[in-house]
């Protein structure tokens, strides 16, 4: 049983490493699409489409690797992740739509960028994981 646990830890470390590589590739290809469109291939639509396709495929790979990592967690860790993801999803929906309404009604002088929502999601998820981990441990 102890060997099984040790194997599990090794496997989890391996999947975590894979996830880091997928995430890095996804961020890099995202940056290539955004900057390459203007700076590298002078707005060529088919190159942009192709590189965006590669970016989306890598993104899907990243998501499935993340799912594999979730499957290697134990029951409490999964509960913490589930609660954190649920809270993050709900808060992002409510805050995101509220933020969008602020933009539509011109209550804010700037445009509501999707990047702000992604930033909010990240902060919210990290905070939820930390709070839930502290609550159970």
């Amino acid at each position, binding site marked *: *049983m*102890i060997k099984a*646990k040790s194997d599990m830890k090794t496997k989890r470390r391996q999947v975590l490493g894979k996830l880091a590589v997928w995430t890095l590739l996804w961020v890099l290809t995202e940056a290539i699409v955004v900057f390459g469109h203007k700076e590298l291939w002078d707005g060529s639509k088919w190159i942009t489409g192709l590189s965006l396709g590669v970016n989306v495929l890598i993104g899907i790979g990243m998501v499935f690797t993340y799912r594999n990592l979730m499957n290697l967690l*134990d*029951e*409490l*860790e999964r509960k913490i992740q589930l609660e954190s993801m649920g809270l993050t999803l709900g808060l992002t929906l409510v805050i995101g739509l509220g933020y969008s309404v602020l933009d539509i009604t011109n209550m804010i002088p700037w445009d509501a960028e999707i990047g702000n929502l992604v930033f909010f999601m990240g902060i919210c998820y990290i905070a939820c994981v930390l709070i839930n*981990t502290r609550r159970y*441990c």
Partner: protein
Amino acid sequence: MKNRIKVLRAEKNLTQGDLADAVGVSRQTINAIEKEKFDPSLPTAFRIARLFGRPIEAVFQYEVE
């Protein structure tokens, strides 16, 4: 749900880490179960009871809230 894991663990001279490794969960999970902050799944509860060589009801006691 109440449990006697801490007492049984002390009798067998096991650390939380030893028990976690034997049961196949993290040390934090054993800690949360011991402190009654988290109720384990049925398979985990059975694995813990089997490890101590006791029936499950000798390790875990369900309390009606």
